[in-house]
C-alpha cells in the first residue's frame, strides 16, 4: 500500500516553515491545530468554556476512550484493525459488575478483567497470525463473541456497589487552580506514557513500525514479526479491558449495551490523530489529541444546546474526511 512517510522535508508547496518540519509530524501538528481551533471557537463563543475545568472534564469524560485509542494505535500501526474493542469494554464492565456483586475483592476483579481482555486479544492475534484470516473478520467475530458473552452473564444492567470501586469513581484529585480530575484520568495518562515508551524506546515498538511499513521486509531483517503481530492484539485487548474498567467506574454499572459502536470512535480518533490505516505511520500522542478533538466537538455541541446530537456524527465524519485528504496530500508530496 502507501509507503510510510519518510522523514525527509517536503520540497516547497507548504512553504518554508512547513518544509523544515519532517512530514511525518505534519498530521499530528494538524490535529493539534484543529484541537486548538475547536477549543478556541468554544472559548470565543461561550463564557466559561476556556476554563481549566472544562479542559479537565475533556480528560475525565474521555479517559476510557484515550486508553482504547492507545491500544488501537498499536494495532493500526501494524496495518491491522480491531473491531472488538467496544464489545470488550462492555464485557469488562459486565464481568466487573457481576464479580463484585458476587462478593469478589476488588483487586481480584481487576486482575480477572484485565486477564480476560488480554486473553481474548491473544486468541484473536493467534488466529489472525497462524491461520492468515483477515483481522477485520477475526475481530468482528471477537466483537460478536464478547457482546454475546455479556448477554450470557446478564441481560439486565448490574450496578456496582463495591466500596473500593465507589471510592475510586467518586474520588478526585485537586490540581493547582481549583481544577479536579479523577483517578481514571491518571490511569489514562500513565497508559499513554507507557505506550509512548514502548513504541519509541523499545525493540518491540520499532518492530511495530517495521511490520506496518512492510511485514515481509521486517521478517527478512530477522525481526520477530510473529511476536509483534500477536502482541499488538494482546495490547489492544488489555487496553480495552482497562478502558472497560475505567468505563465501569464512570458509569458505576455493568451493562451489555454499554459502549456500542465505541470501536468506531476509537478508530476515528486514531485516524483524526494522523495514523494511516495501512500501517507504519502514526503516533500515540496523535491519537490522544484525536480523542480530545472528538471530545471538544461533543462539548461544543452540548454548550450550544440548540444543536442536536446528530450533528456530532456529521461533524466527525467531515473531520475524518478532512484528515484523510490531508494524509493524501502529504503522502503524495513525499
Amino acid at each position, binding site marked *: *500500500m502507501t509507503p510510510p512517510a519518510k522523514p525527509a522535508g517536503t520540497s516547497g508547496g507548504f512553504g518554508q516553515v512547513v518544509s523544515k518540519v519532517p512530514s511525518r509530524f505534519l498530521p499530528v501538528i494538524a490535529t493539534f491545530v484543529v484541537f486548538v481551533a475547536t477549543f478556541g471557537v468554544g472559548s470565543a463563543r461561550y463564557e466559561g468554556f476556556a476554563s481549566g475545568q472544562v479542559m479537565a472534564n475533556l480528560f475525565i469524560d474521555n479517559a476510557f476512550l484515550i486508553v482504547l485509542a492507545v491500544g488501537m494505535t498499536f494495532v493500526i500501526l501494524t496495518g491491522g*484493525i480491531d473491531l472488538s474493542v467496544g464489545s470488550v469494554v462492555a464485557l469488562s464492565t459486565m464481568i466487573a459488575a457481576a464479580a463484585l456483586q458476587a462478593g469478589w475483592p476488588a483487586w481480584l476483579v481487576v486482575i480477572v478483567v484485565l486477564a480476560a481482555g488480554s486473553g481474548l486479544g491473544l486468541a484473536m492475534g493467534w*488466529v489472525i*497470525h*497462524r*491461520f*492468515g*484470516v*483477515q483481522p*477485520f*473478520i*477475526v475481530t*468482528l*467475530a*471477537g*466483537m*460478536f*463473541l464478547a*457482546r*454475546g*458473552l455479556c*448477554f*450470557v452473564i446478564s*441481560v439486565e444492567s448490574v450496578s456496582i456497589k463495591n466500596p473500593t470501586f465507589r471510592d475510586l469513581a467518586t474520588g478526585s484529585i485537586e490540581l493547582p487552580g481549583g481544577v479536579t480530575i479523577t483517578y481514571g484520568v491518571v490511569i489514562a495518562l500513565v497508559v499513554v506514557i507507557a505506550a509512548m515508551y514502548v513504541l519509541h524506546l523499545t525493540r518491540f515498538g520499532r518492530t511495530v513500525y517495521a511490520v506496518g511499513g512492510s511485514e515481509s521486509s521486517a521478517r527478512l531483517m530477522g525481526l520477530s514479526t*510473529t511476536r509483534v503481530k500477536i502482541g499488538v492484539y494482546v495490547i489492544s485487548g488489555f487496553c480495552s479491558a482497562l478502558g472497560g474498567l475505567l468505563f465501569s467506574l464512570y458509569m458505576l454499572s455493568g451493562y*451489555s449495551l454499554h459502549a456500542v459502536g465505541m470501536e*468506531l470512535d476509537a*478508530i*476515528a480518533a486514531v*485516524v483524526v490523530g494522523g495514523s494511516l*490505516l*495501512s500501517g507504519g505511520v502514526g503516533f500515540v500522542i496523535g491519537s490522544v489529541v484525536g480523542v480530545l478533538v472528538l471530545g471538544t466537538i461533543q462539548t461544543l455541541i452540548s454548550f450550544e444546546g440548540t444543536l*442536536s*446530537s*446528530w*450533528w*456530532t*456524527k*456529521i461533524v*466527525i*465524519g*467531515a473531520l*475524518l*474526511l478532512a484528515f*484523510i*485528504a490531508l494524509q*493524501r496530500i502529504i503522502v503524495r508530496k513525499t
Partner: protein
Amino acid sequence: MKNRLLWPVLALVALLVLNVVVTPSFFSLRLQDGHLYGSVIDILRNGAPTLLIALGMTLVIATRGIDLSVGAVAAIAGAVTCTYIASGGDPWIGMGIALLLCAVLGLWNGFLVSVLGIQPIIATLVLMTAGRGIAMLITEGQIITVDSPTYREVGAGFLVLPIAILISLAVLGLVALVTRRTALGLLIESVGVNPSASRLAGVKSRTIIWTVYVFAAVCAGIAGLMISSNVSAADANSAGLWIEMDAILAVVIGGTSLAGGRYSLTGTLLGALIIQTLTTTVYTVGIAPEITLVFKAIVVIAVCLMQAPIRIRVRQGVPA
C-alpha cells in the same frame, strides 16, 4: 469452485438438519390466501435485505474494496422515503428519490476510492459515521411512521412468495447474468487482483470501481426500503444497524476473499442464508436469544478456518 463452497454448504445443511431434528415441521409450508407461510419462507424473507446488501458488497470486495457505509445508506433510504410519504407524497416518487440519493452516495464513495485513491475501509467509514447523522437530520431524530399500503408491499407484501425475497433473487439473477455472461465479472476480478496492471491492460478500472460502489449503495438503498417498509416506519438510529457486518460476513463465509480478485455469487447467497438460518435456529432450538452472538461468532470462525486455502497454508506451516 466446488471445493470452496463445500464448507458453507455443509454448514447450511447442518443447520437445517438441526432445525428438522428439533422441529420436525420445519420444512412444512402452507398456502393461505395465496401467501406461502413457513419457517423456510421466514428465513428467506428476513434474510432478503442482508442478501441484497451482500450482493453489492460481493462486487465491492471483488475489487479489493469494502463498503462500511451500507447500513447508514439503508437508514437514509428509509428516512427519505418515510419523510416524503409522511408529508403527503406519492410512495413511488419517494422511493425513487431515495434510490437516486443512494446512487449519489455511492458516487461519493466511488469518488473517494477511485479518484482520490483513499483506502476503501476509511473512505466508507466517513459515510458510515456521517450517514447515520444525515438520516437523523432528515427525520429530525424522530421515528417517522407512515400508513401507505403501496409502500408496505415492498417489505411485507406477498406475491405467493414474499415480495422482498423476490426482489433480492431478481437482483441476484441480474447480477449473475450481467457479470458472468459478459466479461464484466472478469474485469471486476482483474481490478481486484491488480488495479494498475488492469488499467495498463486497457481495463477502465476507475469506472469499474465507481460502478460497484454505486451498485452497492443502490442495493443498500433497496434493502433500507425493505427494512423500513416491513415496519412502516423509519428509525434513523437502528435501521440497518450492523447490517454491513452481517453482509461482509455473508460474503466471506461464501468464500469470497477480502483480498479481492475473485468472488462467488452462489457463495454469497449461501452465506446470507447461513447467517439468517443461524439466527432463526437459535430461536427454534430454544437457545436463549441472548447468546445468538456467541453462536454466530463460533460459526464464523469455524467456517473461516475450515475453508481450504487456509488449511493448506497451515499444513505447510507458512504463516500468512
